[in-house]
């Protein structure tokens, strides 16, 4: 046996089926891997969609709850009045013990603007006699809003 014959013989002993294009197991493996990656991508996408739908439903339910709330007409009325006072930058409300607490933020101390807000409060309470209100007007200056606005407050109005 020559050296060349030995080499040829060795080649015949190495099974090359998995490197062959005709290997069924290998092609199934790649097919399934591709399928798995595709399914994982779909699952990620579905999870993202589910999360965004859940956020949208929460937002919608919050809006419906606000619209159905007996406080809504009063809060809405107050928003319409307060936004016409230029010195008012934000307004919030929170409810404690059935009292609607109104918090009006102004840029700085301003007698006329605060009088105007006080007048709006009289109008609000005259119109919504069955509701109970309390209120505060805060000239903000350089104070951070999170230092003066309670965490459970809802925005009535915010001037951009």
């Amino acid at each position, binding site marked *: 046996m020559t050296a060349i014959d030995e080499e040829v013989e060795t080649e015949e002993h190495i099974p090359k089926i998995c490197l062959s294009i005709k290997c069924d197991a290998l092609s199934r493996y790649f097919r399934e891997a591709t399928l798995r990656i595709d399914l994982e991508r779909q699952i990620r996408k579905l999870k993202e969609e589910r999360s965004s739908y859940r956020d949208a439903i929460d937002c919608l339910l919050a809006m419906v709850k606000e619209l159905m709330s007996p406080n809504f007409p009063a809060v809405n009325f107050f928003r319409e009045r307060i936004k016409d006072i230029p010195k008012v930058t934000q307004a919030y409300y929170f409810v404690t013990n059935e009292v609607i607490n109104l918090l009006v933020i102004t840029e700085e101390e301003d007698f006329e603007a605060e009088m105007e807000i006080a007048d709006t409060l009289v109008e609000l309470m005259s119109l919504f006699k069955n509701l109970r209100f309390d209120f505060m007007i805060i000239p903000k200056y350089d*104070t951070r809003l999170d230092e003066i606005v309670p965490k459970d407050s809802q925005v009535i109005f915010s001037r951009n």
Partner: protein
Amino acid sequence: MGNLLAHKRKALHNENFLTMVQRNDPGPSFTYPDWMVTVAFYIGVQYVDGKLASLTPPLHPQNHAERNNYVANNLPRLMARDYFFLKQKSEFARYIPDSETRISDNMVNRCVNLALTRFV
């Protein structure tokens, strides 16, 4: 709770206290603008409670929210407005940190003037 006269007596008592404070802190730059505004409110609230107590039937509010409602619906609009103004200013003075640096002397004088003239 009390009748008109009882509330007037208390208002005058608070006015005397204000006079004493003004003697010690005459301005024009007030040392305690927050407390001046607060005393002004407590003068005003006694006159307002007196007015509510003299209505038929008499009204005796048990808390601020109830008083707000009675004031808005039973007193003249401008009087209600001035009362709400004083109330919010005194609460700002009492509860907001550094309020004493954010109440001008002019505002103190206006609040005192409102308390002494608008509800009597």
